[in-house]
């Protein structure tokens, strides 16, 4: 059988279905803990190796074993790597969800399924491929205990055959995945892939329209998750003290970092670590250690998610007032306690921007890709030390935990910037210093580090009650002077945080604003708005808070500005409202998605069209 020569025909109408090449999504529905992650990663990587732009989204439960998991791979010749709402090709391995999974498909989709589930009885408008997985796994995996894990690799072979994915690429991806140390396991899994491929060759006549063809759009690119990218950024930023408390979806950020630190940051001469990593007893302790370390001059970082951010609130206020550098990654997820901790959101924007009590505001960085997780990690440390304040890097579960196709990271060209720190020699020259005096008009004073070998080095660090010389005070004028200087310091960050990326369309009335992972849906939605409705749009992708002047200019240049974000309450828009005048605010519209899955282009397009009244 040759899979490409068959003319695809719609099962219901008998009408011709146009071949769909490199532009569809594959969803694998399994049970977590069944080893499906390996099979899915191999499939995604094989498509990537064929030069086709690809993305992978794992939707998993807060559970270790036995609950439903869906992994969606999207191949897109246009390079769209956001989530695609529609599933085109389903691999139904989970009896619990199979029925609902099949019923949700659009007509004309294809289904590979475990034969005993008899899913073909449910609908007549789909392409069905039944596979007797249990019969196939026995001969390739004599050891019964391993069958549950190997079974999933069979569908890689089936899918490869049906979608014309080169088996050599599957082989390469599989052995890359297992590494040299696990060659035996790789061989076992390869046998399962081949069994699947052979079964499909002998038993299926290709009737669906989907296939993969080689392209050359992934040359030089890498596949990495955002958490690992952020971890690498920290390692190359020269991080020295790392603290953390395990929490989904941020744990793998520090776990990846530990791996890279062990590999690259043990001094070759002394055999000793040029870093310290502490798994703290909770997030309060994690941020306390970060602030203590930052105060004493380390480049210190912690990584957490929303619940941890809430717990850090009091300490962050102290960090703000005592003016201590710190970098905090917030890998955002859906809200508190049990429920949806494994689903993505951009729901901590407003609370983090003003985290703590009293008057506080904090710089936030919004990476949208693994490359930016890497570069913004480095920028965050430079900003934190320059402005002597906690800096938040706001990523999310989608970016942090999913595998992304990305450009290879560039080695930093700028040297590490440690900010305004006085040494013993400086103190000899100056004869002393005033810790909180603004000498250069940017609101940032000079600090000394404990252990500086000089009788004039010491100062006392406390909360809001201090004067320029760091002496205790409860005086009204001292307090006002201090908080005003802090506000001024925040203002001076506007020229130092990364500016937005603006794509201005000369004729557009509509402007779109997005940040972080909402970018991919907006990027694709703009093409949909143009192709389907003839609407031109401009686009501003925000990279940081406080806002830079480009945002205000962008609002002024457009009639209506849609702020796209993944939370219920339009949190970024709320921050914009705090800064802008009524005339600008009147132009702002909100487009929100908050269902816990990564936002998709269709949802954005439909909502904008609805609001535009078209």
């Amino acid at each position, binding site marked *: 059988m040759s899979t490409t020569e068959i003319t695809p025909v719609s099962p219901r109408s008998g009408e011709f279905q146009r071949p769909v090449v490199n532009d569809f999504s594959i969803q694998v529905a399994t049970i977590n803990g069944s080893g499906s992650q390996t099979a899915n990663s191999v499939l995604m990587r094989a498509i990537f190796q064929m030069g086709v732009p690809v993305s992978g989204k794992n939707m998993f439960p807060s559970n270790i074993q036995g609950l439903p998991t869906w992994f969606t791979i999207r191949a897109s010749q246009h390079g769209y790597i956001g989530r695609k709402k529609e599933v085109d090709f389903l691999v139904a391995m989970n009896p619990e969800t199979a029925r609902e999974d099949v019923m949700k498909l659009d007509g004309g989709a294809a289904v590979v399924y475990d034969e005993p589930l008899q899913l073909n009885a449910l609908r007549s408008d789909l392409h069905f491929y039944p596979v007797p997985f249990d019969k196939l796994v026995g001969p390739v995996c004599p050891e019964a205990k391993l069958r549950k894990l190997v079974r999933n690799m069979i569908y890689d072979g089936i899918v490869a055959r049906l979608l014309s994915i080169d088996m050599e690429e599957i082989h390469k991806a599989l052995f890359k995945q297992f590494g040299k140390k696990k060659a035996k396991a790789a061989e076992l899994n390869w046998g399962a892939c081949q069994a699947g491929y052979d079964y499909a060759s002998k038993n299926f006549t290709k009737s669906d329209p989907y296939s993969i063809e080689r392209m050359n759009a992934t040359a030089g690119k890498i596949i990495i998750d955002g958490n690992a990218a952020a971890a690498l950024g920290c390692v190359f930023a020269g991080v020295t003290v790392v603290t953390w408390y395990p929490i989904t979806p941020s744990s793998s950020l520090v776990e990846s970092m530990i791996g890279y630190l062990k590999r690259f940051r043990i001094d070759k001469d002394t055999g000793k670590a040029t870093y310290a990593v502490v798994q703290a007893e909770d997030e309060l302790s994690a941020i306390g250690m970060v602030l*203590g370390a930052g105060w004493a001059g380390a480049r210190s970082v912690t990584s957490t998610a929303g619940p941890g951010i809430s717990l850090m609130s009091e300490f962050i206020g102290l960090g703000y007032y005592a003016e201590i550098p710190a970098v905090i990654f917030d890998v955002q997820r859906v809200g508190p306690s049990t429920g949806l901790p494994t689903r993505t959101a951009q729901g901590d924007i407003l609370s983090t921007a003003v985290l703590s009590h009293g008057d506080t505001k904090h710089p936030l960085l919004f990476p949208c890709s693994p490359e930016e997780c890497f570069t913004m990690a480095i920028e965050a440390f430079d900003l934190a030390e320059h402005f002597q304040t906690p800096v938040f890097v706001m990523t999310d579960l989608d970016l942090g935990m999913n595998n992304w196709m990305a450009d290879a990271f560039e080695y930093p060209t700028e040297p590490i910037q440690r900010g305004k720190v006085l040494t013993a020699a400086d103190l000899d020259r100056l004869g002393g210093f005033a810790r909180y005096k603004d000498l250069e008009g940017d609101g940032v004073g000079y600090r000394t580090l*404990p252990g500086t070998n000089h009788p004039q080095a010491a100062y006392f660090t406390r909360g809001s009650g201090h004067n320029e010389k760091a002496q205790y005070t409860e005086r009204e004028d001292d307090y006002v002077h201090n908080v005003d200087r802090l506000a001024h310091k925040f203002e001076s960050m506007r020229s130092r945080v990364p500016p937005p990326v603006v794509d201005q369309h000369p004729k557009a009335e509509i402007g779109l604003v997005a940040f972080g992972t909402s970018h991919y849906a907006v990027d694709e939605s703009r093409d949909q708005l143009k192709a389907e409705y003839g609407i031109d749009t401009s686009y501003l992708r925000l990279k940081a808070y406080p806002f830079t002047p480009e945002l205000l200019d962008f609002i002024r240049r457009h009639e209506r500005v849609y702020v796209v974000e993944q939370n219920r309450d339009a949190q970024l828009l709320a921050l914009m409202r705090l800064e802008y005048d009524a005339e600008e605010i009147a132009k702002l519209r909100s487009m929100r998605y908050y269902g816990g899955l990564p936002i998709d282009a269709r949802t954005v397009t439909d909502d904008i069209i609805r609001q535009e009244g078209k």
Partner: protein
Amino acid sequence: MSTTVTPPPKKVNRIGLDVVGYKGAKTTLCAGCGHNAISERIIECFYELGVEPWNVAKFSGIGCSSKSPAYFLGLSHGFNAVHGRMPSVATGAMLANRTIMGIGVTGDGDTASIGLGQFMHLLRRNLPFIYIIEDNGVYGLTKGQFSATADVGSKLKTGVINDLPPFDCCALALQCGATFVARSFSGDKRQLQAILKAAIAHNGLSIIDVISPCTTFNDHEGSTKSYSYMKEHDEVLHELDFVPFYDDISVEIPDGEVREVEMHDGSKLRIKKLGRDYNPTSKFEALKVIDEAEKKGEVLTGVLYIDTGKPTFMDLLNMEDAPLATLPEAKVRPPKESLDQVMEELR
């Protein structure tokens, strides 16, 4: 007309500093507060041992006790953290620069209530650090509520009787991993000095629970943390004498009378028997004497436990000897080849 008076030669310590270099700002605590006496002892000990004050960092949480770091070692960096969470700040700072000496002052509310979690985890880590609990059984700064170290039956000024059992911070410290555990009384100058000096010489976590009466809210009849209660119930475990490493005095020690513990820096802590023979290297013994004293309504003071051999947190982390905070870029930013290697693996 003026008379010329030749000032007497300044008395200085072994690094050439006079005692003023170890003082801090004027105290704002109440007259007679035990905490002031503790600050005095800290000043004396650091001065007498010739510790470089710029190589010391002071930490505290929130409360009356936690104000006191402003009143000693004015040439040392200080950090007034948030309530109950000084241990984490101190841990971070010590990791950033392992060459500095860290001293923390906290209270019974700061440690045994809001900060109990951080206290317990500090104990597990055996961080080289001096942790002094100024223990008066009461919240002073919020005007006299019971803390979690108040004894059962102890009475507030308002007549309220405490009916919940106290945490014994020394017992917790013993169980959870501190390597130097002592209890003292702010009114016992000689004992507190010897304990503080031994803690300065100790390479590991020192927990010193100092009963430090609150003259304003907890020094009345019916309080078990008052001066008069301590005078009657302070059961001194042994006589202590600290001999610093640079003092080369050899003294004939009569057999069975004195135990000598050699500290990390070569200093010696001489422990002279008082009534009973107590072995401070046994956790079991320590817990036993604490329990016996509690049953008798006594407050047992002295060095309860000392272990000079346990690895510190820094040892476990296999950290560079030089401060992490100031390692040069060449040490903390891996070369381009390392990044290229990772990128190649991800292609």
